[in-house]
């Protein structure tokens, strides 16, 4: 039997008649019923007919006064016939293909490799804005376009490749390495003052000092000249001036501390909630409702991996803590302590290499808080290299 016969289904039957079955054959031909493998036999002739046409044989059989006896039934429709009584099975089969095809139209996992300085969550957000995130339809996906947009957004990326493997997206990237600073060895440099101050010490490595110990200098003033006079040869030669010029400098800065301190304080017990994210859909696993009011959220998302590959299934654990804003009124002592702490931090940040000789604080109180002004006298290197030629 040919494949077509198997697909349409076929029935082999016997024509039971005391006479020959020629009349039956002619009737079948007249009714347009196609028979094949018509074989005469001792018990009667046998023939094959399409499964769908078997019922049509009743009229020719009645006309030819013969009886038909089915010998064999084969083919796909007959194989599937038993499914008629099981619509659930058919529906599940259809649903399987629909789901398989439907789910294949979405991205389910996005794997990122190669992040060093770039934060992966930030990159995921940027990719999601371009339509690459779990649960997003991948209809208009264009890897080249997204690569260009991501590279434009993150100039520190030297190379990025977005590969679509069905429903998985694999993002491979390489970040640019920061080039080491190139020391400028060419040209002539002189040393100028970076601060106002009084010179206390001079150490010249190259060049000619134009100030001396005890001199007062202003910001930008020449300290060490690049020109060096050769007294024997009677000519001037330019050098890359080098050295340190220590000076006593004075700096003033101030910090303000308000007397009201706003704080967020936990007001009741935290609630932990768990949820399951499957194919981008969040299914809560906890029956507890989130507390009312302002909440502080903290938690973690654990993505399930199978054979080292992310699958679109993740468990989210979230801790919700109810918080309320409390305004705390500080006394003068507390404000002063806070101001001192802030001033120390400022000193460390702004003058890391300076040696503090003297500090003088003045406190000014106002209805909203206090303002502390600090004047410091310090000893520091004020020599700053300034290029004077190419």
């Amino acid at each position: 039997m040919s494949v077509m016969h198997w697909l349409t289904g076929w029935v082999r039957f016997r024509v039971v008649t005391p006479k020959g079955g020629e009349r039956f054959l002619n009737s079948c031909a007249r009714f347009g019923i196609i028979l094949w493998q018509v074989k005469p036999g001792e018990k009667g002739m046998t023939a094959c007919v399409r499964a769908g046409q078997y019922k049509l044989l009743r009229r020719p059989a009645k006309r030819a006064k013969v009886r038909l006896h089915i010998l064999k039934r084969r083919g796909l429709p007959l194989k599937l016939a038993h499914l008629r009584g099981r619509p659930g099975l058919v529906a599940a089969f259809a649903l399987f293909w629909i789901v398989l095809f439907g789910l294949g139209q979405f991205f389910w996992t996005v794997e990122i490799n190669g992040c060093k300085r770039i934060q992966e969550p930030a990159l995921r957000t940027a990719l999601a804005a371009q339509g690459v995130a779990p649960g997003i339809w991948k209809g208009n996906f264009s890897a080249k376009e997204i690569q260009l947009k991501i590279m434009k957004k993150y100039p520190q990326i030297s190379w990025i490749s977005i590969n679509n493997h069905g429903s998985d997206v694999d993002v491979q990237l390489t970040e640019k390495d920061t080039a080491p600073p190139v020391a400028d060895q060419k040209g002539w440099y002189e040393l100028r003052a970076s601060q106002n101050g009084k010179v206390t010490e001079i150490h010249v490595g190259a060049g000619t000092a134009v100030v001396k110990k005890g001199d007062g200098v202003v910001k930008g003033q020449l300290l060490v000249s690049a020109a060096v006079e050769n007294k024997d040869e009677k000519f001037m030669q330019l050098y890359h001036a080098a050295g340190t010029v220590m000076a006593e400098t004075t700096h003033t800065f101030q910090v303000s501390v308000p007397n009201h301190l706003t704080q967020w304080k936990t007001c009741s017990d935290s609630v932990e909630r768990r949820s399951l994210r499957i194919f981008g859909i969040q299914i809560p696993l906890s029956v507890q409702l989130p507390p009312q009011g302002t909440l502080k959220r903290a938690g973690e998302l654990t993505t399930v991996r199978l054979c080292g590959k992310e699958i679109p299934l993740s468990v989210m654990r979230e801790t919700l803590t109810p918080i309320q804003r409390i305004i705390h009124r500080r006394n003068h002592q507390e404000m002063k302590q806070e101001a001192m702490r802030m001033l120390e931090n400022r000193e460390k940040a702004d003058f890391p290499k300076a040696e503090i000789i003297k500090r003088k604080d003045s406190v000014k109180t106002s209805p909203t808080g206090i303002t502390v002004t600090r004047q410091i006298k310090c000893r520091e290197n004020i020599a700053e290299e300034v290029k004077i030629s190419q």
Partner: protein
Amino acid sequence: MKFPDEPSLLAQSGAKLELAGNREATVDGCGGVLVYTQEVVCIRYGRGVLRFTGRGLSLHSLEARSLIISGYITDIAYAARNSLLPELKQSDDKG
């Protein structure tokens, strides 16, 4: 080579007999099966009767106006209207 001015009546009616050796015969324009056994197949053909004699004959396919006879064909006879087919030889049946 000169073609006939008008095709034959048989050709006009669409009747055609095609033989593939002595194993298969395709008949277009069949008017009906008159006798069908493993040794003899008689069919109405045009205005006459066509008889295939052989061994293990079967109708490979039977449609409204055409059929395919397969088997070992030993003899083909045709009798026009108002004429008789030659009698079957007993030796052919047994051979």
